[in-house]
Structure formats: C-alpha cells, structure tokens
C-alpha cells in the first residue's frame, strides 16, 4: 500500500519531488566525495611516508658538520631509533638547464642528492624506491606539474649532462610550499657535481615516538646541534604540507555540502508544511478514527524516506564517479592510498549520515501533527494564515505602479513565506562568493603580510651556507640598495639565535629577527610591531610554545646579560617553520643565522629586471621576488580551491534555479484564488506576472545584498577556519569586486529570471471560473 501511496503522491508533485531529490543527492554526493577523498588523502600520505620511511625530524644545515656530536646526541636521546646525515648539493636554478630552459624562474631551493640508504627514500611514481643509474636524473614531481620537464629530456648542470629518467615523489619536499626540492642522481654523478654547488646537510632522525617530534626539536636546539639552514621539518609539518592542497579543497566541499543540506531542509520544511495544510482535514479524520500520531507520521515519512534513500544512494554512486579527477591528483603526488575500500565505505557512511539527518529533520517537522486537533481539523480545516496586511502602506499617495505596490505589499505581509527563497538566495550568494574570496585572498600579494612576510617587491637573503661573511655581504647589499635611485625604501634585518635563561635546567632558544620592522610591516593578529628596544613581537607558534600573550615578559640572554622584553604583538608566520620573533634592539657577538635586505621599488613592474640584475651582482646571495614567490608557493592551493570554487558556482546557480522555480510554482498554486480575483477585475496575465517577477526581484535583491555582506564578513571566519591549517589565524578577505558585486549577482539574477518564467505560464493557466467558484 505504501508504494502505491508514494507513487501517487510523487506523480502529483513531480517537480518538488525532483528538486528535493536533487538537493539531497548533491549534498550526499559532496559529503561522500569529501569523505572518500579525506580517507584516501590521509591514507596516501601515510602510505607514502611508510614506503619512503620519512624522517620524523629533519634539520637542514649548511657549513661544517661534526658527526661525532650528532652520534653522541642520538645515543643520549632515548627516542632516537636511527639517524643519518644526507648530502644536499644546492645548485642555483640558473645552472640547471632542462632542455633549453633553466630553472632561474623557480623560487625553490634546488639541490641534488643520492638515494638514501636507511630511510627518507625518494620514490618513483609507482611507489618504488628509485635506484638511479649513471647518467640519469630523477626530477621532483613539482617540475612535472609546472611542465618544466618530461622523461627523456636532457639536463645540463654546470656542463654535466644527464637524462631525465622519471619523476620522483619526495615525502618531505613534494609540495610547492616546502621551499626546497631534491633532484636524484647516482653516486658517481653526484661526485661529478660535488664541487659545483654549495653543500648542505639534511640531518635526519627516525623516532620511536614520532608524536614527540616537537619535544625532540626543543631537545635538538637545546643541545646546540647544527641548525644553520632554512628548514626544520617535523613529521607533523610533512603531513600538513602534503595534505594541505587537497585538504583545503575537501574542506570547501564540506562547507558547500553543509549549505546545500540547509537548502534541502528549507525546501522540505516548505513543502511538508504546505502538504500538511492541504491534508489538514484528512489528518484530522485519521486522528478522529483513532490512528496514532506515529501511524500518521509514517504515511509522510515513508515518502521522504524513499526520496532520501534514493537520493543518498544516487549521490553516493555519483561521488564514486566524480572522485576520479580528484583522486588522480592525490595518486600522482602521493601514490596509492591502500585504503580505497575503506574510502568507499566512508563515502557510504557520509551519504548515510545525510539520509539520517534528513529523516530526523522530517520527523522533527512532523511533530506538528501533535498540535492538530481532530475536531477543529474536521470542522474547519486548516487554520487561516495569520497574516495581517502590512500597515502604513496604502494605495493612496503611493508613487509606485499598482503592480509594484501589490508586489511590495505582498512581500511585506507574507514575510514568513518569502523568507525561504530569501535564505536560499543568501546561501547561494554565500556558496558562490566564499570559495572565490578564499582563492583571491591566497592569490593576493598582500596575503604574505598575514603570513609573516612584509609587503615588499623583492628581498635578498644571505646565509652561512652562501658566504663566510654574512654581515659583510649584507652590508654591501644594503649600501648598493641605498644608492639605487629606483628603490623606494628598504630595510636590513638580521636573524639571530638567543638563549633564554634556563627553566628547570632546560635551555630554550628563540630566533629573533632584528632591525626596523616598521618599513615593511606584517599584519599583527594581536597588538603591534616593536617600537622600542624593550619590545618584542612573536609568531603565534612561539606564543603557543612559550604560553605568552601581549603584555607578557620574555627574557633573552643578550651579550651575556639578561634582557627583559615585553611582548608587544603576535603575528602569524609561515617562514622558518612558523617560529620567529621581531625586535629592534642591538646585539653583538651572537650567532647570526641569516641576514636579509627587503626592497620596495618606485615602480614594482621593474621587479623582475631588478631581481636579475642584483642576482648577477651578488651571486652569493639569493634574490627573491615576493610576488613570484607567493604565486609559486600558493598556485597549487589556489588552483585546488579554484576547482572547488567552480563547482560551487555551478551548485549555487543550480540551487537558485531549482528553488526559485519550485517556490514560484508553489506560491502561484497557493495564490490561485487572489490571481483569479485580480483577473476577474481585469488584470492581465502579464501585469499579474509582473507582480510575481517583482516579488522575486525584491526577495532577490535583499538576498543578494545580505548574502554578499555575509559572504564578505561571516565568510571570512569560514575562510579563516579553513586556512588556519596554514597557521594563518586571521586575515582580511581579499574581495574581487568584479566577481563579488557584478558577476555573482548578475549570474544569480539570470538564474532567478529564467526560473520565474515557468511560474508565469502557471499564472496564464489560472481560470477565474474554477477558482472563484472554489471560494
């Protein structure tokens, strides 16, 4: 009997059933997709790290290295399972020529290595440990993505000729965001290259308890171990960097899915309530003849159960098909996950959760049955809508046309009804804009100021790895820059390592960058930059590590004496593993880790030329264009979010069209009587249609305005939540006005307009005779 009931009911309400099915289907698909991708992403990362036997803690170091010291440290530390030191031969991008192009455009640190013996293996794309032959070079996957190399290309490095044998997966340095890249060659070829670059070392440890890698790091620093290099990489950071690109996309899918579920709820609520109103008398009769509320509820839940089940299953199946392009990216970068079956299972569970949520919601809405009094329902039918004409708006003295007046009056009087369409427009604007805003924000050059890097055009870095005389070279650079007429402003900063007074016997150290931080300010999440020699600003990771907030004291050992500093600001940083501080006091005789000169030009368009010039003048320093670095670092994340954003635009448009069609059809069905009245008074179909167009337009404009405001304010929090995985805890949204204020509203307007047309045909079909007689 149920199946006949459902069939009949669905036949009568094809459109609404189709729309609700689509909404549930889309949300089930997205949730399932997000679940499948998440499981496979983390599976693939784990799998890769397992095969590659990724180091749990890695420190890059340039300069001399004392193996005995490392060995002693490792033996004393109970957590060390094994350790090794790998050679990493840093070679200028300009000296690496693949085919006819060199890599001077790349902001990555490029270096050559041999295959490791113990752990931290470099893998081929099939996940096997590569054994490079003489004359072969294996290229980081990053350069496959950028299209810089293909198998068989010839690579020339300082006259040494090699052939690209394939691409390698580097569990530690795969992502664009890891700023170093390893090229793999045979040991013989490595010997040929040995003197052509700057030797750096990767000091690597495998730990018994990888979760303790952060503690291990403090121990490492406290033991005064070699640490002269840009990177300290813990296993946590490796996992994060490998996961972030796809992880963000998954998060965006999750966000969209949540919003689509809400839209589905709105539609279910709207249609269910309309249906209850329609069936009010029958429900009363059923109650009167003694059916229980639960029995009556079942008649309704069965239908929605059937719809939700079909839609969830279809959504799940569709997600299996849709996962392919996403999975291809994961497979390429990270390899197979080995959890495919589990992923499918997670997808199914995701879709099932959507089904359950929908059923719970339907059941919740149907609680209303309890309130229906059998006697009242049978005698009088559904209670009249409790609407009152909106006061203070009357025909007399109005300036609008009759149609406009009636439309506005109706929207004001029946706010509760229109709120559904309004919310959907708000949500659609939101879905359309937030991912786009996130993408813009990441692509924006100013984004770097939220990441601990001041807004400049380019900068020089000088490290011990490049020269014995860091200070001398940077002073020379600063001098040249100060005499350069095209330079607008510059700042010279030095990064030094300070000890902190021992607490419970353990010595902590803090890396502090000294100099004038006011020239290229970063964005502070709390407080402001240092203005006096007694102030210090710290990165949020340091703030967490040391449990400090603005106003707290930090004591550093400066030139042999304790120096009291007040925390004046906290900022987000992604450089140097997120652990940095900024101060302006002077210090002598402390280890200088690195030195940098930041430059802004009168004409930023000249950046590329200046970078090339200065790089030629100071080959021992690295000259890096900020915009270029930003672009290269974030392009993959931006393009992953771009994909999700495109999906979001399509989904938002689809939602808007479907809901508007649905809403207007139901509204017109509900309004058959007043439409007939208007027709009987001589209103043409066109002028009544204009009223409905106008009602949509009013709701639309309100929805878009509120939606845009919310997307650009509340959406920021959603964006921050997503991007906090970067370590960026706060930043303003970068809004593309053309998209946010022109393209997005226009697209939605077009959707609403198209969707209004079928409703107008319904107005045409309303016959005065049939409906006036009904009254």
């Amino acid at each position, binding site marked *: 009997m149920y199946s006949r009931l459902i069939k009949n009911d669905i036949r009568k309400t094809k459109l609404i059933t189709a729309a609700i099915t689509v909404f549930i289907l889309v949300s089930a698909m997205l949730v399932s997709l997000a679940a499948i991708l998440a499981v496979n992403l983390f599976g693939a990362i784990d799998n890769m790290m397992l095969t590659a036997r990724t180091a749990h803690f890695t420190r890059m170091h340039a300069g001399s290295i004392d193996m005995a010291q490392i060995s002693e440290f490792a033996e004393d530390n109970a957590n060390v399972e094994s350790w090794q030191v790998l050679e990493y031969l840093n070679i200028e991008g300009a000296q690496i020529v693949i085919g006819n192009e060199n890599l001077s455009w790349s902001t990555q640190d490029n270096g050559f290595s041999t295959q490791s013996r113990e752990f931290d293996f470099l893998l081929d794309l099939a996940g096997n440990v590569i054994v490079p032959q003489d004359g072969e070079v294996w290229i980081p996957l990053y350069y496959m993505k950028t299209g810089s190399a293909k198998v068989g290309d010839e690579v020339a490095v300082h006259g040494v000729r090699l052939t690209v044998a394939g691409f390698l997966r580097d569990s530690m340095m795969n992502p664009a965001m890891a700023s170093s890249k390893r090229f793999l060659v045979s040991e013989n070829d490595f010997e040929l290259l040995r003197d052509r670059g700057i030797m750096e070392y990767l000091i690597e440890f495998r730990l018994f308890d990888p979760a303790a890698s952060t503690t291990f790091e403090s121990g490492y620093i406290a033991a005064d171990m070699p640490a002269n290099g840009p990177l300290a990489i813990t296993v946590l950071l490796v996992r994060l960097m490998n996961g972030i690109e796809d992880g963000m996309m998954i998060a965006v899918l999750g966000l969209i899915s949540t919003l689509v579920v809400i839209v589905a709820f709105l539609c279910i609520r709207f249609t269910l309530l309309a249906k209850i109103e329609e069936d009010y008398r029958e429900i009363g009769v059923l109650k009167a003849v003694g059916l229980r509320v639960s029995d009556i509820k079942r008649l309704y839940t069965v239908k929605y159960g059937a719809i939700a089940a079909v839609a969830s299953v279809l959504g799940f199946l569709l997600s299996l098909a849709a996962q392919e392009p996403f999975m291809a990216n994961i497979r390429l970068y990270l390899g197979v996950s080995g959890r495919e079956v589990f992923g499918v299972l997670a997808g199914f569970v995701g879709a099932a959760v959507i089904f359950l949520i929908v059923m719970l919601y339907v059941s919740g809405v149907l609680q209303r049955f309890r309130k229906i009094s059998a006697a009242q329902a049978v005698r009088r039918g559904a209670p009249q809508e409790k609407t009152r004409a909106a006061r203070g708006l009357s025909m007399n003295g109005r300036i609008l046309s009759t149609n406009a007046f009636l439309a506005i009056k109706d929207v004001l009087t029946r706010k509760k009804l229109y709120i559904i369409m309004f919310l959907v427009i708000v949500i659609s604007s939101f879905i359309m804009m937030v991912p786009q805003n996130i993408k813009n924000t990441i692509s924006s050059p100013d984004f770097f100021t939220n990441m601990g890097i001041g807004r400049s055009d380019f900068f020089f870095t000088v490290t011990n790895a490049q020269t014995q005389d860091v200070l001398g070279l940077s002073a020379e650079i600063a001098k040249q820059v100060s005499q350069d007429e095209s330079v607008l402003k510059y700042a010279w900063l030095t990064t030094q390592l300070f000890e902190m007074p021992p607490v419970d016997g353990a010595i902590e150290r803090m890396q502090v960058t000294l100099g004038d931080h006011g020239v290229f300010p970063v964005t502070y999440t709390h407080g402001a930059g240092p203005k006096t020699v007694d102030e210090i600003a710290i990165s949020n990771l340091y703030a967490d590590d040391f449990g400090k907030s603005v106003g707290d004291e930090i004591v550093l050992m400066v030139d042999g004496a304790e120096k009291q500093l007040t925390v004046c600001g906290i900022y987000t940083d992604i450089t140097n593993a997120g652990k940095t501080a900024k101060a302006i006091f002077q210090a002598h005789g402390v280890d200088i880790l690195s030195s940098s000169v930041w430059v802004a030009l009168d004409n930023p368009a000249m950046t590329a030329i200046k970078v090339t010039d200065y790089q030629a003048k100071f080959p021992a320093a690295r000259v890096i264009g900020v915009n270029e670095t930003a672009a290269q670092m974030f392009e993959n994340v931006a393009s992953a979010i771009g994909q999700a954003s495109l999906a979001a635009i399509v989904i938002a448009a689809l939602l808007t069209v479907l809901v508007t069609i649905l809403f207007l059809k139901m509204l017109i069905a509900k309004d058959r009587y007043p439409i007939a*009245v208007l027709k*009987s008074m*001589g209103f043409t179909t066109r002028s009544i249609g204009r009223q409905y167009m106008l009602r949509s337009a009013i709701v639309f404009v309100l929805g878009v305005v509120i939606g845009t405001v919310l997307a650009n304010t509340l959406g920021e929090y959603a964006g921050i939540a997503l991007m906090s995985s970067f370590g960026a805890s706060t930043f303003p949204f970068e809004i593309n006005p053309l998209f946010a204020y022109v393209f997005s509203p226009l697209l939605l307007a077009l959707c609403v307009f198209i969707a209004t047309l079928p409703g107008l045909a319904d107005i045409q079909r309303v016959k005065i005779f049939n409906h006036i007689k009904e009254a």
Partner: protein
Amino acid sequence: MNKIITGKNIVKIFGHGSEQTKVLNGVNAEVEKGEFVAVMGPSGSGKSTLLFVLSGMDDITGGSVRFGDTELSQLKENELADVRRKKMGFIFQQPTMLKNLDILDNIILPAAQDGKKDFAQLTQRAKKLMKKTGIAGLEKRDITEVSGGQLQRAGICRALMNEPEILFADEPTGALNSKSSEEIMEMLVDINQEGTAILLVTHDSKVAARADRVLFTKDGDIVSELKLQKFSGDKIESRTEKVLAQMAAVGI
C-alpha cells in the same frame, strides 16, 4: 442596437474524453442596455456557468458571445482583461477581496490598474460609494475585521469603481442573512435604475423578483422566461409569487 450581451447557441463542455460533461446545451441569452436580468435554476442546471461564459470569464466550447459588437471569443486574453476592467463589474457569492489590502485599497484597485492616477479623486469616489452602500468609516479596516455583509458591500463598491456598463452578480446574497440580503438587493435595484445593466444568478425567488426578466435554466438549457414590470418599490410579494408560479410550471 441596444443589446449589451448577446449569447447564441452557447455550448460548454467540461472535461475530456469519456469524462465529458455538457453543461450548456446550445443556449441563447441576451441582456439589453440598462436591463436587470435574473437567472434561476436548480444546482447543476448551468446557471453560474452561463454567467461566467457571458462575461467572458470562462471560454465557450461552441456558439458565440458578443459584448456589444465585439465577439468575446475572438479577443486575446489582454483585450478581454481590458473589457472586464473598463466595461464590466463582478460580484461573487463569497466576497473576493485581497487579504493584504485594506478595504479602501481593495475598492480602488481596479480603477488604479486602469491607469487612473488621480488618487484624491479615486478615494473620493470610493468613499462616496462606501457611503452609499452604508460602509463609510471602514476604509482602513482589514478585510478580516468586517462582517460578511459589509465585505459584500465593499465588493459592490469595487465593481462600480470603473462605472461599468454591466454588473455580473453570482448569488450575491447567497452567503448573507435575510436583512443584509434585502439591503444588498435594494442597492442593486438602485444601481440598475441609474442605468447599469445587471445579470444576476440566484436560488432565491425573492431576489429574482426584483429583475425585469427572469430566465429559468434546467439541464443546461433555458427552459422558460418571465417578463416583469420594472421594479419600483412596489410590493415584492406579488412579484415573488409570479416567479414561484413559473418555477412550478417548468418543474424546477
């Protein structure tokens, strides 16, 4: 040419295929300018359908309906709407008012839609009509705040706003008590005497007795016609008896 409505050989069929019902069976009916015509008949005899097709609110399956010289079935939907708005007025059994407008705005609505822009004048006219129909003072009331009789009067005011040539009334007193019913009928007689033709459908012989002419319908046909003197305050009882006698004669 004094005929305002001329219906010839009107056929109206509802439904399709085997579920067809023939409601009007080749009916001829006409209304002269300024005439007051009543249509009586049992339920299902097609009297309301006749009113709706003669007013162009429903289309016909066969035959012809002319308003003056204009064949209604030839008009496009918009032209038909224009005729309804400018030349016709309608009163229904249940007052057909828009819920979200107050009484005054409901009354003004068709005139405003007709492009009449002088609201002071429209309001003045509406108030005059309201006074005449005994509902002065209810201008700003919600339609849920007045009685059925008052609402029906407001409906009459609305129907008269555009000074129609003919008023169609479908059981205008059907939902009212006898006192209100009497008052409404007196009003209609007054309106007719000022020159507006009326075509009225009713069950009530006392209501029909105020007409100049009564048409009796049965099974989709007009089976009889009763001509009366123009009603001018004379005794309603004797006219009602004539109507009742005719009804008995044709067996309805």
